[in-house]
Every structure is written in C-alpha cells, then in structure tokens.
C-alpha cells in the first residue's frame, strides 16, 4: 500500500476511463490533480507529521495515554473503530464494491414495480414504528438516487435530467410511475416528521427523526409531487398491462396520492386510506421480488455516528396490520377532537385518555397528530379557544351558575364594576394556570412511562399554582364578599373556587401518578400496601374536596331558583350531576385502594408477602425515595411513614381484615351501579361511551376478584385453624400468592393478588 492511497486510485480510474471514453479520461486526469491538491491542503497550512508522530508515539509506555484532560475514557468507549466491519459504516470489505450494483434507470416489469412499492410500504411503517430511516426507507436505491446531493430539480433517476421521449413501457414504469411514487413517499416522510417535531415526543424512546445528512427534497413543492402522481396514474393506463396488474399499481398510486392529500390537509378522509390500502393488500401476491433494488450499502454515504445496521425485514402482513392501525388511530383522533367533544373540557380529557389507551397504544405520529389537533393553534375547535376551554373547566367544576366565571363578566369594561375587577383577577390566575392546564392534555399524548414521569414533575408546579389560587380567592373575597357556610368544626368556611379547582386537578394527577406506577409495574410486592394506602388517602382528600364544592353548589342552587335565572339553573344542575359522578368514582377508587391496602397489608403481616433481603436499606429511606415526587408539596404534605404504620396497626386479625375488605367492596359496587346509570351528558363521557362502559365493567370485575381472593384466604386459614392469625403469625407454609402482571389484570391499575393454598411437597 502506498502512503497515500488516492493518487493511485484515481490513476487507475483514469486508465479505465481511457478505454471507455477519451473525454472521461481527461476529466479523470484533471480530477486526480485536483484531488491531490485538495488533499495536500497546502493553502490551509497543513503540515505532514507522519514520521514525527509515529516516532513520538513509540516512546510512550504501553498503556500510557496522551489525552485531552476533559476527554473521559467513558466517552472513548463510544468511539467507532475505523476499519472494523462491525463498527465502521464506511468499511468496504475486500472484493466488494462501494456502491450497490444496480442501475436505477433500467426499465422494470410492472410486477417488480409492485414489489418495490410494497417493500417501501413495509419500510415506511417500520420507520413510524421507531426504526431509523437509514435501516428502512433510505435503503431503497431509487429513493437514494432521488435524495442524492448530486440530484437536482426536477429530481429524476437521471440526476435531474429528463429521460427521452422514446421510452419503452418498462422504462416509463420506472421513470414516470416509480419516480412519482418515490417522490410522494419522500413527502409523506417529510410531512409527518414535521408534525412530530413540532410536538412533544421522546427521541430515544419513541421515534428517530434523524435524516443522516439527507434532505427531503425541500425545494420540491408538494403540488409538483401531486401532479407527478396524477401523471403516473395516466401513464399506467397508457402502457399495456394486464388489467389486474394495472389495477394493482393504480391502487398503490391512489393510496400515496390520498395519503399526501390528508397530510396536506386537503382531505381528512383517513378511512378512505384504509380502503385504498386494502386494495393494495389484495393484489400483493402479484408482486415479483427484486431485492437488488435495496441495499444497506447506502449507509456508507449517510452521516451517522452509529455502527452499520442491517436493513430491516418487515413482513407484508405485519406492515399491513400496522398501516391499518395507523389509519384507524387517525380516524379516531379526528373523531375524539370533533367540535361537540371539544365543547366540554371533561369530555375532551376523557377523549384524550381514551386515545392513549387504545390497544395497542397509538404510535408517535398518531400521538403527535392528536397533539397538533388539540394544541396546534390557540383554538381547540372552530369556535372554542384554549381560554374558553379553561374557563369552561373552572365553571363546570366549581363555579356553575356563578357570575364570577360567566364569560359575560369578562366583557364588562366599567372599571368600578366588581364583575370587571373579579374577572381581571380570575383572568390573571388563568394566565398563570394556562400552560400547566394545557399540559394536562399534552402529557396524556406521550408514551405511557412518560405520562407517569411528567405527571410526577407537574405535581409541585400545580402545588405552587395552588398558592396563587389561594391569593386570588382572597382578592375575590375582598372585592365582593363571598358566601360562607358553617364548616365541619363549626367555623364558617368559604368555597375558595380557584383553590378548590386547582386542588382537584392536582390531586387527580397525584392519584394517577400512583396508578400509572401500578400499570408500569414499578412497585415491588412489599410496596403495594403502602402505595394503595397512599392512593386511598389522596382519594379521600379528593372526595372531601368534591363534597365541599357540592355543598356550595346546592346552596347556590337555592338562590338561583328564587332568582329564576334559567341558564344559571341549568348550568348548576348539570354541574351537580357531574360532581355527583366524580364523588362516586373517587369513592370507588378510595374503597378499592383501601381494600387492596388491607389485603396486601394482611398478607405482609402473615409473612406471605415479604420484603426482599436488603443489607443496607432502611425502611425510612426507602419510604422517602418512593415519596420523592410528593415530598416538596406545601399544601398536601406527604404522610409520614409513622402515620402509615399507625393506620395499619388498627386492622386487627385476619378475619377482621377480610371482613373490612368485603364491606368496602360492597359499597364500591353500589357506587359503581349508581354511576353506571348516569348518562353521557351527566357524567361527561360524550364520545367515549364505549371506553366508559368498558372501564366500569373492568372495575366491577376487579371488585369481584377482590372478594373471591379474600374468601379464598379465609377458606385456607379456616382449614388450618388460623382465622385469628395476626401480625407475626406466619402463614408462609400454607398460603401462596402471585401478583398478576399488567396484561393479566382485570384493570391495569389494580393489582389483585392471586391467593392459593401452598401444596406440601
């Protein structure tokens, strides 16, 4: 090997060129000179240090490093080793060619075109699924040619040159049909990418936005692409093809055309897309494989700091399912954000959750699409602004039938009018609450683990918002004296609407952060009792808060009936139903949580569930670590571990505990039966009726399962004469418990221990 490989290589190039074409040889020779100049970098002041460096390096002791003090060995581990086939994406094995050996300009059979298109559909959906473009769409040599930095407008397989007019059918299929399809595909990557990047998502977990130094034909207008697709459709009709083959290609072109149209907002008919895709699916077996049209060699030219990775293999059946799912998610995202759902913040909240809990969970693009529909502009629907949404939320929950939260009060401009003064204070509170309020929707559009994590981060923010709410409530009371009612201890209490509203949302998020913890399986068996106990505590706080709001609502109702303000009366009645449904649901949550805390606690007392052996852990520190998200709260300080132990002490022996579980579940079932009777308008589940019914059913089944397991425990203990077993009496020898993983639960948020008798071996 020569010291510098380049001159020889170019020389060889020139020689070969000589045989083929004189002018090419001249060009190559000139190029060799140029390259030599470029490589010497004389102008930029580069000096050759090969010998000196080598000699100096030899002087170092083995293992001795000369390194930048800020450069760590930890970083060094991430360095890609050049010339290592597994690490170096630019490595060309001996005997291999640098470029893939396939001429993208050559004519292809129609059935080969079908195969390429279908393969591209497989790779495109794999990208949506989280794989990088370098392993998927970019491995297509046709796509690679169109994206080549050497290509120019109008972007053809001939690097921007327009192919001649005398093209054979097979050539037309490539240069007109496949080209148009590929251009369409590139735009269908660009547009979703834009939507995803404009919204919240997690690169490492959800989606790879990296383009590896490529550009997605930014200069090419989507109109031109749409036109190219229309031309392609004409072309298919003009070339001579068997009817089924022509139809198959047309279906694929139509799919691309329609997909582009919905992405551009020209149409919103995602369901039509499913139909188009079905047509493509039914003709997939016509395809004749042409694997040579794809190659992972393209990675040699992509800017990447990762090792080379094989091209992804995706089966058509799998891809077809995924495409159908994507389109169905989009249809649902549109439906769940329709105007009549967006009118009610609580229906919309349920809708967002319903979307997140579609099975399987919607992908990043679908979730970004929903975020874009919700938060892409300052309007949530045509005539509902985000401001309206927030105000409606406050009114529905705490201020129905009260002029304080009446949009009309916000229109009053007389500076001395108390309504004007109050609305200014409320407005300024809303400004402060605005971002976090919209986050209540945005967070639910993230992946499941992130929902929980962002929730835990939002809790302290909502807690400090509560401080602002308290101050604003004081201001409101100062401006126009607010009504007070006798409190539980006889002292008069005020509604404090904004505080109550903020608290409701804060406690909801706190409870959900715990419940998502169960769903994502982060608690150890010996933590279940404490976490359900904590959930029960927060649910109690929530339902007493709601009952507080309800008392003032009923009181307001009395005044309104006298005043015969029919709009306010209707509003108040609706709010009453809504609060009633919330109280029932939160009470159900509380009862279930308390029952499970009881059952798990009992199992711990009896040594059936026991903490793992930890040599250094201290109970108090473990508690602090688990309570971290709630630790900094000022208004709802996290209960101490002593408090937890105190409440656990009063639970008595096994049969008393089981009895308590039974009683609690009985009441929970009554609540569920009552809430089941409520209409979508009353309990605000318009648009999510199906999910609502399913959720209630799951909760009912959870109740039944809990009773079954408790009686099972009783039966076993009776058999072994241990009905009065208490803390310290081990039942390890006779009782066995297993905790179902999320997929096997009746409801993801409720872990009902499966109890059985331990068989003696």
């Amino acid at each position, binding site marked *: 090997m020569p010291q510098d490989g380049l001159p020889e290589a170019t020389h060889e190039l020139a020689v070969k060129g000589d045989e083929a074409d004189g002018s090419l040889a001249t060009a190559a020779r000139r190029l060799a000179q140029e390259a030599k100049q470029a490589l010497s970098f004389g102008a930029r002041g580069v000096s050759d240090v090969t010998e000196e460096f080598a000699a100096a*390096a030899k002087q170092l002791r083995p293992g*001795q490093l000369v390194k930048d003090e800020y450069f760590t060995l930890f970083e060094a581990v991430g360095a890609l080793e050049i010339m290592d086939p597994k690490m170096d994406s630019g490595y060309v094995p001996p005997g291999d060619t640098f470029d893939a050996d396939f001429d993208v300009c050559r004519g292809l059979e129609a059935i080969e075109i079908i195969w390429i298109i279908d393969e591209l559909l497989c790779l495109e959906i794999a990208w949506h699924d989280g794989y990088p473009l370098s392993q998927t769409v970019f491995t297509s040599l046709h796509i690679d040619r169109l994206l080549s930095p050497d290509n120019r407008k109008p972007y053809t397989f001939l690097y921007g040159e327009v192919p001649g007019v005398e093209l054979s059918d097979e050539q037309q299929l490539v240069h007109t049909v496949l080209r148009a399809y590929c251009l369409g595909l590139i735009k269908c990557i660009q547009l979703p990418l834009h939507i995803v990047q404009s919204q919240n998502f997690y690169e490492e977990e959800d989606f790879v936005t990296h383009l590896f130094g490529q550009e997605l034909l930014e200069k090419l207008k989507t109109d031109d692409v749409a036109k190219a697709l229309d031309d392609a459709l004409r072309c298919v009709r003009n070339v001579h093809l068997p009817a089924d083959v022509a139809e198959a290609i047309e279906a694929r072109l139509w799919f691309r055309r329609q997909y582009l149209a919905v992405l551009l907002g020209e149409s919103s008919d995602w369901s039509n897309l499913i139909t188009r895709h079905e047509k493509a699916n039914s003709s997939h077996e016509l395809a004749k494989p042409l694997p040579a049209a794809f190659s992972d060699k393209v990675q040699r030219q992509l800017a990447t700091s990762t090792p080379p990775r094989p091209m992804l293999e995706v089966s058509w059946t799998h891809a077809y399912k995924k495409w159908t799912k994507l389109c169905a998610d989009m249809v649902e995202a549109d439906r769940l954000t329709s105007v009549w759902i967006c009118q009610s913040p609580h229906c919309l909240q349920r809708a967002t959750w319903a979307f997140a809990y579609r099975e399987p969970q919607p992908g990043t693009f679908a979730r970004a699409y929903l975020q874009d529909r919700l938060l892409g502009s300052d309007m949530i629907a045509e005539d509902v602004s985000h401001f309206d949404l927030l105000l409606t939320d406050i009114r529905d929950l705490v201020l129905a039938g009260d002029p304080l939260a009446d949009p009309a009060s916000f229109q009053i401009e007389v500076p001395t009018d108390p309504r004007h003064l109050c609305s200014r204070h409320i407005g300024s509170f809303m400004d402060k609450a605005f971002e976090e309020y919209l986050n209540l929707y945005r967070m639910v559009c993230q992946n499941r683990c992130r929902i929980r994590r962002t929730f835990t981060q939002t809790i302290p923010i909502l807690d400090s918002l509560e401080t602002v709410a308290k101050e604003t409530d004081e201001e409101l009371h100062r401006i126009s004296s607010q009504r007070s009612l006798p409190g539980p201890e006889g002292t008069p209490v005020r509604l404090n609407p904004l505080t109550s509203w903020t608290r409701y949302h804060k406690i909801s998020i706190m409870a959900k952060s715990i419940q998502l913890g169960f769903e994502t399986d982060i608690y150890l068996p010996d933590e279940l009792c404490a976490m359900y106990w904590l959930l029960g505590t927060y649910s109690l706080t929530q339902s007493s808060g709601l009952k507080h709001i309800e008392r003032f609502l009923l009181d307001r109702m009395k005044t309104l009936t006298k005043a015969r303000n029919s709009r306010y009366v209707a509003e108040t009645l609706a709010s009453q139903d809504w609060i009633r449904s919330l109280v029932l649901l939160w009470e159900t949550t509380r009862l279930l949580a308390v029952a499970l805390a009881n059952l798990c606690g009992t199992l711990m007392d009896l040594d059936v569930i026991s903490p793992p052996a930890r040599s250094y852990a201290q109970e108090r520190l473990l508690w602090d670590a688990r309570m971290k998200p709630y630790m900094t709260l000022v208004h709802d300080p996290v209960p101490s571990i002593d408090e937890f132990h105190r409440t656990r002490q009063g639970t008595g022996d096994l049969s008393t505990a089981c009895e308590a579980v039974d009683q609690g579940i009985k009441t929970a079932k009554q609540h569920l039966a009552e809430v089941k009777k409520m209409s979508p308008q009353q309990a605000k589940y318009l648009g999510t009726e199906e999910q609502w019914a399913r959720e209630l059913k799951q909760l009912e089944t959870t109740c039944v399962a809990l009773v079954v397991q408790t009686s099972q425990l009783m039966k076993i203990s009776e058999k072994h004469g241990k009905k009065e077993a208490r803390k310290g009496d081990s039942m390890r020898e006779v009782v066995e418990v297993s905790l179902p993983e999320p997929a096997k639960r009746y409801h993801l948020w409720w872990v009902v221990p499966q109890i059985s008798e331990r068989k003696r071996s």
Partner: protein
Amino acid sequence: MSTAALVALSKASERAAEDAESYLNTFLNKTLHIHITDGRMFVGQMKCTDNERNIILAMTHEYRQPSKADVQLAADRHERAGRSGNVKVDMKKRFVGLVVVPGQYVTKMEVEG
C-alpha cells in the same frame, strides 16, 4: 555495562519519553487529517493517542474519493453545459462523529495550523 551507565540510559529514555509526551500533547484538540490504507481520510480533533498510534478523533468528517460514477456524472454535466477547463468533483464527505483510527491503518498524518 556499569550500573551508572544503566541509570544514565534509563534516565535518557525517561527524558525521551517525557519529550515525546509533551510533543504529542501539542496535538491535542488540533485538527488532524489522518489518511488510512483504504484511501479514506478522516478530519477531526485529536482527543487521545497511545503507543500504538491509535488515535481518537472527535467531530470527525470522513472524506472519500469520488467513485467512477461520480466522475462520469460530473464529466457529463460539464460537457452538456458546454463548459471548458477542469471538471470539479468534490470528495464525498460525511459526518461520522467520534472515531478511533487504529494505528495499523494510518498511512499519513497531517495537522492543520
């Protein structure tokens, strides 16, 4: 050899090693052009080296000579545009980030500035 001579020798080699180390230190964070056996060149900031001349470069770009097809394309374009004079073909350049170039493949090293 006497003990004194041995001590002197080892001292001399120690000094040489120190000199070598301080010489190599001057390259840290300088932009190096490292040519390797397959004709590629890597341009990046030197972060680390050892006695086998393995070199870690950060923020590295890989340069590769244009392929036959690239040259052909450039020549065609040149001709079609009716231009005279030299055909220019850029080297293929791409970002590869943090790399380690094993000493055994290094054919030539240059330093900028």
